[in-house]
């Protein structure tokens, strides 16, 4: 089959390594060898890699920098929280929250993909900064609409309770499944024929069109996939936090996504992953040792990377070690 073929390429090795490592950590956590706070580090890493890759499909692969990508993250989270709180009584009486969670997630992902398709058809005609700004606009429209939601706790906030005997351990695997799905989808998108088309669009949209790439359709597909992946992460994030707040629509999350992609390097599958690791390390270090300076340091790093390392860390590795290129797609 087509797909299994992709999953045997050398460039997939790193992905498999990640899946195995995070899987082993999960098993150890479930068996009680690893503390919750250590496991939380891995969960955070999964989330960072996940949201970075979700944006990468449109920003890094296709070249369209979306500053409002968080809108899909938020929609996924909102509908998950909405469903879980709607059926809270059932859950409290011992109902299985996972079916409801899955339902909420599917609604969130579905609506995100739908929104991406409809809005994308319009805004993807814009290039460069105009697209970025239109997506910011989109995020604010949805955010303000969401804030008028009077259900839940009011002010657009929704609380629910899905506590279970081994909630944390189970949640690790919820993250893990989302992680595996994201990695595989993002990877296949990158290395498939579709990915070549997206790369052509990123490098030169007009040339791509003339060569035979249906740029309009491809951009929309990429946007839909990116939206769907972001929605999955919004969904599992809500699940873990027991709530949804309008802050899940805040541009700060978009900022995280963009910074990880920029640091890691645009145009690759491995870039956002490396970016997420580096970002996470910076994030933890600054939070631990220089909490007040975290943003200052991050900002300086972004400026430095954009100015002096435009290809990002992955680009640096790829150009310094051409032999590794086939592993670092």
């Amino acid at each position, binding site marked *: 089959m087509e797909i299994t073929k992709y999953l045997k390429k050398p460039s997939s090795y790193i992905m498999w390594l990640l899946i195995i490592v995070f899987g082993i950590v999960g098993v150890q956590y479930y068996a009680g060898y690893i503390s919750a706070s250590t496991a939380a580090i891995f969960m955070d890493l999964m989330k960072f890699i996940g949201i970075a890759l979700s944006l990468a499909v449109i920003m890094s692969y296709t070249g369209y920098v979306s500053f409002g990508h968080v809108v899909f993250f938020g929609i996924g989270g909102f509908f998950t929280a909405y469903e879980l709180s709607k059926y809270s009584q059932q859950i409290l009486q011992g109902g299985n929250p996972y079916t409801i969670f899955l339902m909420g997630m599917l609604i969130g992902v579905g609506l995100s993909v739908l929104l991406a398709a409809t809005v994308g058809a319009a805004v993807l005609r814009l290039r460069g900064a105009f697209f970025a700004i239109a997506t910011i606009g989109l995020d604010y429209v949805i955010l303000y609409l969401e804030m008028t939601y009077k259900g839940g706790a*009011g002010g657009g906030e929704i609380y629910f309770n899905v*506590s279970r005997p081994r909630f944390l351990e189970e949640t690790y695997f919820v993250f893990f499944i989302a992680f595996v799905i994201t990695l595989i989808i993002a990877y296949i998108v990158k290395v498939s024929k579709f990915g070549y088309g997206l790369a052509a669009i990123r490098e030169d949209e007009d040339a791509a069109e003339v060569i035979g790439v249906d740029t309009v359709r491809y951009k929309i597909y990429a946007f839909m996939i990116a939206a769907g992946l972001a929605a999955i992460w919004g969904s599992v994030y809500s699940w873990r936090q027991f709530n949804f707040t309008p802050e899940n629509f805040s541009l700060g999350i978009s900022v995280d996504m963009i910074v990880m992609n920029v640091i890691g390097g645009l145009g690759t599958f491995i870039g956002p992953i490396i970016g997420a690791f580096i970002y996470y390390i910076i994030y933890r270090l600054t939070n631990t040792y220089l909490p007040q300076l975290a943003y200052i340091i991050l900002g300086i790093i972004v400026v430095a990377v954009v100015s002096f390392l435009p290809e990002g860390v992955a680009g640096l590795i790829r150009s310094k070690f051409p032999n590794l290129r086939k592993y670092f797609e």
Partner: protein
Amino acid sequence: MNKNLAIALAVVIIIIIAAVPILMKQGGGEETTEEYGTIKIGMTISLQGKYQTEGKQALCGVEAAIKWYNDNGGIEVNGKKYKLELKYYDDQSKKELVQSYYADLVTKDKVNFLLAPYSSGLTLAAAPISQQYGIIMISHGGASDKIFSQGFQYVVQVLTPASKYFESSLKLVKEQIPDAKIAFIYENSAFSNAVMQGASQIAQQYGLQVVYNNTYEKGQTEFTSLVQEAKQAGANVLIGGGHFEDGQILINTAYNNGWHLKFISILVAPAQPEFAQAVGDAAIGVAAPAQWHVKASYSPDNVPSGYVWAGPTKEEWLQAFHEVCPDIETPAYQAAEAGAAIVFLVEGIKSANSLDNQAVRQAMNNLAIYTFFGPLKIDPDTGKQIAHPMIVIQWQEQNGQLVQEIIYPPDSATAQPLIAPAVWWPTG
């Protein structure tokens, strides 16, 4: 060749990752011995981030209460003496950190009881852990009613829930202003919404007339439209607010647009000492509901019927507070409510005469105690606080100085309420 190398490398890495925690687990065995007779209380608190000021206060309040108990012979449970020990982590005001730290507190540090983190959002993030392991968690900074409608069985509240925030203020309005026409202008957030839902119900109950009811969004700076609409609706009492900045701007806008008001009570901002500096003379007459104030005089001398005195007196607690946190001049309400959480927990343990969480939780249902923080009593089903009243503080002018006075409840009031101050209600 290259491929084999890569696979070999991967296998090595995987083995290392798999082995490390197991080895570490065998190496570092941590056993808890009962010979010290300690009761471990765990919490995370925000020493960084947006709740850092409140977090520091709360931590000092807790430590002061613990110190008082330990200095006064500890606690006797089932014939054995125990001292209290606090284990805390800094959650940096971040939801993500809360869950893992609480899980660690329970599984690694093996604490007996939990205190919640500061704020409703963080409390909610920690609640699942309490539920999962069946450990009591006392909420001292989470006012939202919604926490207590989610079916968490071990979460217990010591502070007044959001729905009761304006009860005292509205009682004042009903008593003092017969022709009151109320405008509700508040932030569109879960907390303010909950507060206002409660306030609306109470106003209805009291038969007060509400002529305007609207919200503004977080981070807003434009209040003129709302203020003008409310003014034109003929409102003469303003109830609302949300946070610090919006509170200031709201008051400022109301004042600068010539809105004549007899009484104002808004959330949070006026409770801060800096408020008067921020809005100047417009602060006169502005009131705020507060959980507690250092001038409040709850003492063993005025215990109402049905309650018993428990824990340190205000003076004792203040003294302990200054010993553990000499750098903080005046404890704020966050410190008092956190201290009261310890008192409530200890009284629960004493009453159950056991360290078993289920037993203590049962015992708490029957507690009715009067503390330096005021009366405390919980709803057995939800763990929600039902006895503690809000006090109302108001900015007043004394000898040319702007000061905060308590105007409600009457038994701990330090001044008469100022209704229709000349600044806001110019006559003629």
